[in-house]
């Protein structure tokens, strides 16, 4: 693969995203999604979750987690396609879809966590 100056930056974002997602995503999925759905834990209530997210640092952290995890996934998946499926001829399209997807997801996270809905809910 051709070396570009942006590559080292992508690798460090990959690392940061890999570490954050390894440390934080399983417990978030378990507490918020899996355990309540299985009836192992009560589902967290609306008031509780909004009060947690009312703290700007909590929202900032969640945005950083989502954005970096997405960049990590995009970068890793790009190389999986490159090594695994050997689709080198579609390299540019793969790059655009992977990093474009990560960018879109990050913008979505920022929109969700840093814009207000019509009624003051969050």
């Amino acid at each position, binding site marked *: 693969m051709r070396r570009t100056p942006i590559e080292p930056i992508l690798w460090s974002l990959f690392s940061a995203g890999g570490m954050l997602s390894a440390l934080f995503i399983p*417990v978030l999925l378990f507490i918020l999604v899996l355990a309540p*759905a299985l009836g192992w834990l009560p589902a967290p209530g609306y008031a509780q979750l909004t009060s947690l997210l009312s703290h700007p640092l909590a929202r900032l952290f969640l945005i950083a987690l989502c954005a970096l995890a997405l960049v990590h*996934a995009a970068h890793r998946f790009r190389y999986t396609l490159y090594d695994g499926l050997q689709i080198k001829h579609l390299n540019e399209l793969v790059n655009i879809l992977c990093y474009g997807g990560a960018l879109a997801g990050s913008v979505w996270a920022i929109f969700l966590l840093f814009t207000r*809905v019509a009624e003051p809910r969050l």
Partner: protein
Amino acid sequence: MTSHSGYTLHHPQWLRRRVSTWWWLSRWRYFKFILREITSVFVAAAVVLLLLYVAALRRGPDALIAFQSWLSRPPILAASAVVFFFTLIHSITWFNLAPKAMKVRLGNIPVPPALIAAGHYFAWLVISLALAWIILTGG
């Protein structure tokens, strides 16, 4: 080869053999590598799941309850269980590789790889317990 390499009667034979797209199915080691790499898809899916959660929360209490009951429908539950399983594989393989990525020295003594991995697992445990406590008790 330069343009002066001269005339050869026959075309040199290629040494490269075409590798099958499914090369990683031939050995367990290779399969494990792809299994580790493919966790990226599920990390992305986990982020989407979390963002859908926040989106439901934004829409108000009723939307949150509707979303939570959607999560307990069997197909969605099965899918999120698969996502959770792969995020666990991501965490475990990530922490196991950490000692290879970082060489830590205390003074002149190199920290043993097992200790670096253990430190990561310990951090994982502490963070998981702390986050669970914060979410379940509301901080």
